[in-house]
């Protein structure tokens, strides 16, 4: 649709402003992560670029370097101690394991469930949306205390068994993400015409062959997009991870430990926070096209 020039300008300015507002915190976070402490705590002004960039914060959180040593090496003064507590490599590893595991479990269940809901008739099929919404009504904190008890009883606490701890966290993330993943996958599967299934059946494929050889490859993009979303939700989850695990410290929980009794390590928080955005960012770039289509939940037909 052609629009007039003034209208186009207004539209573009609005778009840039909105994106700017949303992007500013991320920009500020990234900027903070390369600031020395003196620039982070500037009481007299808002300091945008008047500082010498430093990668101390990344060095300490991502590469396990000693903060005091780095500070001395680079000649920008002494920091306080506690270097090892800020080494987040273990946390990143744990986050990766939990998030990938949760994504794998979620997607394995979601594609089958979504196929059934998209293609088969059964009682209660139409209530699925209510179930999804129902899951979203309840904030996780409402079930947190009983959940911790259940996990303790079921032996899913990492303090009892580290592997079960991982498994427990993956399971709760999978549970949390399943409704949205199924809903997304359903919308992608609904986009594959039923005729294709029928053509495959006439061609001699069994139901499972139809699913595996015909339908599934046609929704590869959708699977990737849904998986990325599930991964991001798992990657950024804080509350459940905080309560259900002790030994395992996923990145969001780790960041929270940088708020200490002796002060908040803003530089480290910003560095680890910025680094944590990167995987989500890359994944989203990769599946952007499918993600937008998926999030409209099939309402846009080509």
């Amino acid at each position, binding site marked *: 649709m052609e629009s007039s020039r003034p209208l186009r300008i207004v539209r573009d300015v609005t778009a840039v402003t909105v994106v700017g507002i949303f992007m500013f915190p991320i920009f500020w976070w990234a900027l903070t992560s390369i600031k020395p402490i003196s620039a982070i705590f500037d009481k007299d002004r808002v300091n945008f670029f008047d500082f010498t960039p430093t990668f101390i914060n990344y060095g300490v959180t991502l590469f396990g370097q000693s903060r005091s040593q780095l500070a001395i090496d680079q000649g920008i003064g002494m920091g306080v101690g506690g270097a090892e507590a800020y080494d987040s490599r273990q946390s990143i590893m744990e986050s990766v394991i939990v998030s990938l595991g949760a994504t794998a479990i979620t997607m394995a269940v979601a594609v089958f469930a979504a196929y059934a809901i998209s293609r088969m008739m059964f009682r209660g099929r139409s209530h699925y949306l209510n179930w999804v919404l129902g899951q979203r009504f309840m904030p996780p904190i409402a079930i947190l205390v009983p959940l911790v008890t259940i996990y303790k009883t079921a032996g899913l606490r990492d303090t009892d068994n580290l592997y079960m701890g991982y498994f427990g966290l993956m399971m709760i993330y999978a549970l949390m993400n399943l409704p949205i993943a199924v809903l997304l996958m359903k919308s992608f599967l609904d986009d594959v015409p039923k*005729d*294709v299934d*029928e*053509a495959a*059946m006439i*061609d001699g494929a069994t139901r499972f062959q139809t699913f595996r050889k015909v339908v599934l*490859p*046609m929704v590869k993009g959708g699977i990737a997009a849904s998986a990325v979303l599930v991964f991001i939700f798992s990657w950024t989850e804080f509350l459940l991870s905080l309560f259900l695990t002790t030994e395992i410290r996923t990145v969001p929980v780790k960041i929270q430990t940088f708020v200490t009794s002796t002060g908040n390590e803003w530089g480290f928080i910003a560095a680890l926070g910025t680094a944590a955005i990167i995987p989500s960012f890359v994944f989203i770039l990769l599946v952007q096209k499918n993600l937008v289509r998926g999030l409209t939940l099939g309402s846009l037909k080509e």
Partner: protein
Amino acid sequence: MSSVTIKNVRKSYGNLEVVHGIDLTIEDGSFVVLLGPSGCGKSTLLRMIAGLESVTGGDIEIQGRRVNNVHPKDRNIAMVFQNYALYAHMKVKDNMSFSLQLAKRPKAEIDEKVKWAAKILNLKPYLDRYPRELSGGQRQRVAMGRAIVRNPAVFLFDEPLSNLDAKLRVQMRTEIKELHERLKTTTVYVTHDQIEAMTMADKIVILRDGYIEQEGSPLEVYDKPANLFVAEFIGSPSMNLLKGEVTSNGVLLGEGTTLPLPPVHKAALGQKVVYGIRPEHFTFGSGAPAKVVVVEPTGPEMHIYADMGGQEICAITQDRVSLTRDEIFHLQPRLDKVHLFDATSGKALA
């Protein structure tokens, strides 16, 4: 031997019966078109033959074998869908050979059959392309290729041309007809387009609301429609259907206009009838008066829409006539081409 026999087949969805006891014999090697408006049950009937819909009552036999409970893949049929239903992630050759691969046929045989099909359908240059890289017509040919490599007993086509543009549709119509001439495989073809039906079929089966209204060769249903519905449905522009009453002089349309009765008919004096005459079966110059409403020159012929006895009619002539709006001219129906239908039952009287 008949290829497909349909005996008193019914289909219900819950309490709603959509196909009401259809009997139909499809001869071996014939091209049968199921024709009707949307919702007439033609696609449902085809899908029951394919095994994609269960049969509520009656029997379907393919090559003399009752197939009501046979899986689609074991019915020895192949189907072409309206939206092609190609496997988007497979190359053309894999689309065509999918059924053979599933049947675990030797690779040499698969290659040979795909080559053969590609040659028939002019798809050779496209075998290594993906469906998205093909035009609509080419995609439809791939769908046909997928059907013919299996060498089935019956081809089923479900409105295969309705997604194509007008020009391509005409071209594909010819191609499908040619393919049938060549392979002589029994074909059941569903469409709502009466031109497709007329041009391609050996036998047209006209359905409405789950009943067969008439079956016969294209010219039979065109020349001898069994009822008002068929008369109206077949032919473009459609037959003029004028309401009137039988008098001793002919059929009185109102406003004093009377049209002559055909020599043989079953109508009684005073009976309310519908007088049917196709636009091309008028003689210009004498007969009943009509007032011009619109003149449409199509090139080969002129379509004249006019008012006759208070009812709208269309007349076609290949002569170049110069008529203007509101001009009165005279039309004489060719008596051997006149149809009479009972006004209440719609059944043909002559």
